[in-house]
């Protein structure tokens, strides 16, 4: 009961914040990109919160608990690079474009409504699928914790995120995302000593996990061996982690729910700093979370389904007050992603599809009204799909996320660095990349086993790149396209550039210092106990 109360109180808080901020949303720029006034803290909060969801705190937690915590962390090494590489190689140029949506950027870059529409349609289809999956995941969790039926839990989830998203748009999403970021970060860090303590204390908890006969080699770099191992030979598991890590790195770098956060940044320096802090946050959160989870295997080795491991720990291994924070934090991770997804879908429908297809420019108040109405309609459709489809189809969410790496990846980077890409190449790259991933996933669904290096995303990236290259042999590059590219390659100099640069220059040091701390923490909490176990 206490957990349900905690969740409901947090939901009410987010809704109230949405109501309060809605009064401050006066124009479309406030609604879509929070007036481009996002601080480093806010943009970091929304970057991390939009990325972490029930996939992280449930799906991946379950994978780690089953036997692969270190393999997952190897994936995260590559995954987290997406923030730094992404902001320098794409995000900051997106910020310079001053677009209100990412499809708008593609449309302006290639001076093509068709390219804009293709990007918008892939945004809407891909993110809707992900939104359904995360909404259902959150509803299943809420249903389990509260005892409410799944349809009621789904309705509550939907109300919680749709309310503040519709009312206050990007502004409300960014503020609530930042609160949620703090909530699940605190939950992860504070639960660590309690879980380790309950599992046997330090370093015994980790020694026990390393020598658990039910999960041999649990804390090895390749994960468990024996009859329950399912990731193949160590080299296959490593290849899988690296490939998936790089795919997710591309997702972080260019997917709309990540890159669009930079559109909200006050300036380019803020965008870059936020990318750095997001990297440090992800690396740290994952390390603490998965070391904790590995020790839970010795306390209760039979949690089923395994994705409930962190929730079980919240209800059985930590004090009630912390359990409430953890459970609310997991719900927050789901809610924050849902809010960002809904905001993006609504923005794209209004700005990229409706405005462009009618060849009409809405006034600001029309834009706000139309955006809110389209967001309400979309959220109701998502609710109905969530009710109709069987829950926990996490593969849909996973497919939806990684399809952007294939569909948008080649054209996103080429749009910045290549002077030879035409609108024809861009259009076909987006379409073929999307279809390539669908083809790959369909093959898997029909029982075709694909080797790890022929992951559907790889198929999509290869086809997308080919389409970009071949398609760019057709069509011409207009003066407007050249001018747009020239403008975004020109770095805007801030009025207080010297001061901003002085702050930004500290950030490499923050990364290096964090890296040294993380190495020390990893040796103390992982490598040293592992050596004792051996």
């Amino acid at each position, binding site marked *: 009961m206490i957990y349900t109360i905690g969740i409901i109180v947090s939901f009410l808080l987010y809704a109230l914040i949405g109501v309060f901020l809605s009064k401050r949303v006066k124009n479309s720029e406030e609604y879509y990109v929070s007036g481009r006034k996002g601080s480093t803290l806010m943009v970091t909060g929304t970057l991390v919160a939009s990325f972490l969801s029930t996939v992280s705190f449930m799906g991946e937690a379950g994978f780690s608990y089953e036997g692969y915590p270190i393999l997952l962390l190897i994936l995260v090494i590559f995954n987290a690079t997406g923030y*730094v590489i992404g902001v320098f190689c794409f995000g900051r140029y997106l910020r310079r474009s001053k677009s209100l949506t990412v499809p708008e950027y593609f449309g302006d870059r290639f001076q093509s409504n068709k390219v804009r529409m293709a990007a918008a349609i892939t945004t809407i289809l891909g993110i809707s699928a992900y939104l359904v999956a995360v909404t259902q995941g959150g509803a299943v969790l809420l249903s389990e914790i509260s005892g409410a039926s799944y349809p009621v839990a789904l309705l509550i989830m939907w109300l919680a995120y749709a309310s503040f998203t519709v009312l206050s748009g990007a502004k409300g999403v960014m503020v609530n995302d930042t609160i949620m970021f703090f909530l699940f970060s605190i939950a992860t860090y504070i639960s660590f000593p309690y879980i380790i303590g309950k599992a046997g204390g330090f370093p015994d908890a980790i020694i026990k996990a390393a020598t658990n006969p039910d999960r041999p080699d649990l804390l090895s770099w390749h994960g468990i061996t024996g009859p329950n191992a399912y990731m193949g030979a160590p080299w296959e598991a490593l290849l899988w982690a690296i490939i998936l890590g790089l795919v997710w790195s591309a997702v972080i770098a260019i997917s709309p729910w990540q890159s669009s956060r930079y559109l909200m940044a006050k300036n380019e320096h803020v965008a870059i700093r936020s990318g750095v802090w997001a990297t440090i946050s992800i690396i740290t959160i994952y390390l603490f979370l998965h070391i904790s989870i590995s020790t839970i295997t010795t306390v209760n080795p039979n949690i089923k389904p395994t994705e409930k491991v962190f929730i079980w720990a919240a209800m059985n291994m930590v004090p009630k007050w912390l359990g409430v924070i953890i459970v609310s934090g997991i719900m927050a991770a789901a809610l924050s992603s849902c809010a960002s997804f809904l905001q993006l879908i609504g923005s794209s429908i209004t700005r990229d599809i409706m405005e462009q297809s009618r060849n009409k420019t809405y006034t600001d108040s029309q834009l706000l009204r139309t955006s809110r109405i389209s967001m309400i309609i979309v959220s109701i459709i998502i609710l109905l799909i969530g009710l109709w489809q069987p829950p926990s189809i996490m593969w849909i969410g996973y497919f939806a996320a990684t399809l952007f790496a294939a569909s948008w990846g080649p054209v996103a980077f080429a749009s910045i660095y290549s002077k030879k890409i035409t609108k024809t190449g861009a259009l076909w790259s987006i379409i073929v990349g999307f279809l390539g991933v669908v083809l790959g996933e369909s093959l898997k669904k029909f029982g075709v086993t694909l080797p790890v290096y022929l992951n559907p995303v790889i198929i999509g990236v290869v086809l997308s790149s080919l389409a970009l290259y071949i398609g760019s042999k057709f069509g011409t590059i207009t003066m407007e396209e050249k001018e747009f590219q020239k403008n975004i390659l020109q770095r805007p100099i801030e009025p207080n550039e010297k001061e901003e640069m002085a702050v930004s220059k500290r950030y490499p040091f923050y990364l*290096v210092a964090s*890296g*040294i701390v*993380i190495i020390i923490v990893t040796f103390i909490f992982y490598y040293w106990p592992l050596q004792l176990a051996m």
Partner: protein
Amino acid sequence: MGEFIFSLGYGGSLIVLGLITHLFIRKMNHDVIANQSANTDKRTGIS
């Protein structure tokens, strides 16, 4: 051995990213100085 490499590599990735960030920011700063210098040359009529 793999565990040792992982223990170094997990935090080490942040160090590598720090070096990459340093290179990018140094270039950004250099571009600003080059721009300012070109503007000063223009103002003083130096070709």
